[in-house]
């Protein structure tokens, strides 16, 4: 119908223009930027593979990647265990069930900027809440954000605290979709509650676990505001994240080509990591 086609084109034209300008062009341009040297003030110049070579030899970039892996090594297991435990606790008739769920979820809706500032207070060595609590237990003040070995794990704990409510809701939905008959069947086999959880519930929650791992991993590679506000990437660059490094290259050093190269490398690494994770979790299912 002519009129219908006209309406369709008319109603989607703004979106099509938007996609071209703010999605497709940046995607294409990200590759072009890799071979450019550009400070946004003077004209860009062709730099060949300089940016890529620089990246390969850039200790800061590799340090940032290692930092991200440290973050994930703490964050992923912690996230899964805490989320699963809290979801398991909520998966029963409870007084005030909506309240408990809402309490766990609250940090999810709060801006990362606020959470980070709040935790800078919690982690503060002298006046911080956590060290205050530890002092009551006669435990010495922990230099949460100033010890190079502790800073990144501390950030991972904070990120877990901020996001775990989201994964509780996801796991809870998964738990509620496990048919009662599955539990009853294994109970009749004489299994304990723990065995039932291990052999029935956990395998059935594989899709949720995959989602938790995927989203948390993406989140880990996107780390920015946390090190930016809490540590500035220190101490000893042990909390420098790739996005923070990218931001500095673009904003502070005006190296657009190199910043874009970091972005492209990061996108490829994320894609590769997600594929590997999917394989690992998928093959665990088959065995």
């Amino acid at each position, binding site marked *: 119908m002519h009129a219908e086609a006209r309406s369709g084109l008319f109603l*989607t034209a703004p979106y099509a223009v938007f996609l071209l300008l703010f999605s497709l062009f940046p995607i294409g341009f990200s590759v072009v930027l890799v071979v450019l040297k550009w400070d946004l003030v003077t004209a860009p110049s062709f730099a060949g593979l300089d940016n890529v070579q620089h990246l390969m030899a850039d200790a800061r970039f590799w340090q940032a990647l290692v930092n991200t892996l440290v973050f994930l090594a703490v964050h992923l297991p912690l996230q899964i265990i805490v989320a699963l435990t809290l979801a398991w606790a909520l998966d029963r008739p409870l007084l005030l069930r909506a309240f408990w769920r809402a309490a766990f979820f*609250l940090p999810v*809706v*709060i801006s990362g900027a606020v959470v980070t500032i709040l935790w800078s207070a919690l982690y503060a060595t002298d006046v911080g809440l956590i060290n205050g609590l530890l002092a009551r237990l006669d435990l010495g003040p922990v230099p949460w954000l100033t010890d190079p070995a502790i800073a990144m794990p501390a950030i991972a704990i904070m990120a877990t605290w901020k996001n775990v409510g989201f994964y509780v809701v996801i796991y809870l939905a998964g738990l509620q979709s496990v048919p009662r008959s599955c539990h009853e069947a294994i109970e009749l086999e004489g299994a304990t509650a723990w065995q039932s959880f291990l052999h029935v519930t956990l395998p059935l929650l594989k899709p949720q676990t995959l989602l938790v791992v995927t989203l948390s991993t993406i989140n880990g590679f996107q780390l920015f505001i946390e090190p930016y506000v809490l540590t500035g990437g220190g101490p000893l660059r042990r909390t420098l994240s790739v996005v923070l490094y990218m931001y500095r290259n673009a904003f502070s050093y005006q190296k657009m080509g190199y910043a874009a190269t970091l*972005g492209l490398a990061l996108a490829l690494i994320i894609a590769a990591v997600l594929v590997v994770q999917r394989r690992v979790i998928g093959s665990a299912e088959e065995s």
Partner: protein
Amino acid sequence: MRRAAFYVVLAVAAATFLYPFLWMAATTFKSPAEVGALSLLPDQPTLDNYRLMWARAPFGRALLNSMLVATSVTLSVLVFGSAAAYSLARLRFPGRGILNAVTVAVLLVPAQLTLIPMYTLIVQLGWVDSYAALIVPFAFNATAILILRQFFLQVPRSLIDSARLDGMGELRILFTVFWPLSKAPLAMVGIITFMGAWNEVLWPLLVVRDEQLMTLPQLLTVFSLGGGAGPRQLATKLAAAMVLVVPVVVAYTFLQRYFIESMASTGIKG
């Protein structure tokens, strides 16, 4: 007995998430001497932290900026996004297939890839330090369009036919027939879009340098990077954070079910 113990453990777990916020709220009313204390009740309540915060940086202006930006982005995503979603779901026109495919493909591209090219684009457009830089790049959202499109696909075709026979044009069908039917997905998209825009930090940090144009989270970040780490500064920073948190917590208290369901079902976090 076991049951009581279970509730105690649950309460401790909930306190882990709630207590820091309560402590933060309490601390903003404390004098520097009390900041380190665990108690929630200040001995000598004071508004000094708020006065200081308000005097040091334009937080009132930032609140207005944040509201303007988040509202504009949300309205645009809902109005223009649903028009696009409606067309992609229910109208036959050349290019629809490509547009649908691109919408899905765009979702798979990590944000980090396009961040720098987008920034250079904004600079080239001369949009640095403008509301346009904060609003236009978020005026459409592929996730929102897919959610709405999925819902619009389920509306019976006969309702569109009937509306056309009643003499309605496509825009009228969208707003007077589809919108009243789509309150749930529109609310969902509205909430996640608003929250996303309200909490965003990285993008404003890149494209806005003028303090008068900064959004709340950005100004808060910039403000907290300056100033020291002493008790007075800490309490002042937390007071500033309260400006950002209070509206969200109020909305969340009344609409928590919608917040949780919207965010959980779309896989987007704040």
